[in-house]
């Protein structure tokens, strides 16, 4: 299901127009993103938690050219599903 379908289905469920739902979606996601930047964790009950994790610097070798590259550290977003969700799909 891609984004468009998602928006359409969501708008159907909350009985609002797609335009409105897409606005609300982006607003909500904006808030989530902002909070992640500031505080690293967003936990949604029965769904899962989104976490910002830091990946350390590392050296990796390009197997074809054999050159060694220093990959800088970075922050990545991590999602850990809640147990309920995990069980649902087992």
């Amino acid at each position: 299901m891609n984004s468009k379908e998602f928006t359409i289905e969501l708008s159907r469920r909350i009985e609002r127009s797609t335009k409105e739902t897409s606005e609300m979606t982006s607003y909500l996601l904006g808030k989530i993103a902002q909070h992640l930047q500031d505080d690293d964790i967003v936990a949604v009950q029965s769904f899962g938690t989104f976490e910002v994790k830091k990946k350390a610097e590392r050296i990796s070798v390009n197997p074809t050219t054999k050159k060694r590259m220093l990959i800088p550290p970075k922050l990545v977003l991590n999602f850990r599903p809640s147990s309920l969700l995990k069980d649902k799909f087992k």
Partner: protein
Amino acid sequence: MDERLNQQHLIDLLAEMDGVSKKDADIFVREFFHLIEDALEKDGIVKVKGLGTFKLVSVESRESVNINTGERFTIDGYNKISFTPDISLRELINKPFEHFEAVELNDGVEFNDIDTDDELPQEHPLVLDETELNSDDNIIADEEPLSEVEQTQPIIQGEDKAGEVVAENHETVIDAVVAAITNAEVLPIEEEVSDNADESSPALLKDEDQQVELDKSIPVRHEQQNRLYKYLILVPIFVLIVCIGIISYLYFPELFELKSKDILIEDKVIVVGKEAIEKASPESIIADSNLVLIADIDSPVIAVTAPVESIPQKEPIKKTTEVGEDGTQPDSINYKIVGTKTTYTVKPGETLTRVALRFYGTKNLWPYIVKHNPNKIKNPNNVPSGTVLKIPEITKK
């Protein structure tokens, strides 16, 4: 702001939007996540623009062993939920590090603390030292004495923004940053830049992570410092020992078994020895043995006795020298002892090689003297003056 944002908070935040009531927000947020769940169940993949993609990944069953009982059992296959953030979200989150680039490493640059197949000693052990630990507030600004200032600039700006938020967590932050610096100490320059930058700004964001990492790094730093100190001490000591060895070798050759006897006499006598080889007449040999004696610093007295001894020695001299050894290798196999030629008292400062030279015309036959005087010569390296030796008569085998 609370550290964890939960669903209720999300609802409250959404309700702040124009035209959205609390009730609407509540319904929206709940449906939002439920939909993701349902869609995932239905399609196995859900893409939400601005957030990312949720995918179901199947994991096949595998065998495993119960650690307590040791019996084998099967872990059944199941479906994992995987999440890949959207590009925009990814970049937004990585903002503190956005200016970092992957850099090609030249040969010879090594790092300790990173996952890599190479593990070689670090190059810059103690660059960021106690000075950093002292100045709390200036750490972030001052820690880059090295190049790549550009990288630090955006970091510092990033920190300023975060700084307001973090004002409350000041102490923990400083601790983290300070500890972050000590972590950075472990790594050499190139890494320090990115490491410091990375430690300082995310440190503001993520205190707990840092503490865990830093606890590990501090003992590592100490280990490495200790290792370095050991090297710094051991190397000069080793050099000193080598120097002492060389000096004693030069000044006390008797201490060294290898060819020392030969070496003393070598310079003076080889020339003479060669002359002895060439000349065949008894007179010349007498003259040569005189030469030998004169060259000998320590034994002017023997000049008297030498002519007497030199005549019977003529043949042995010839024979010994004809053997053709170069005069440096001790020889104890090519000849056999057939009797005693004469006796001789060792003079002060004389060695067996000198005695051999006197009687055989060559240094390398001293082992025969030793063989012939087992009770008198306990240590060939040290035959005290006054020892009376039987000089064997030797013939070539």
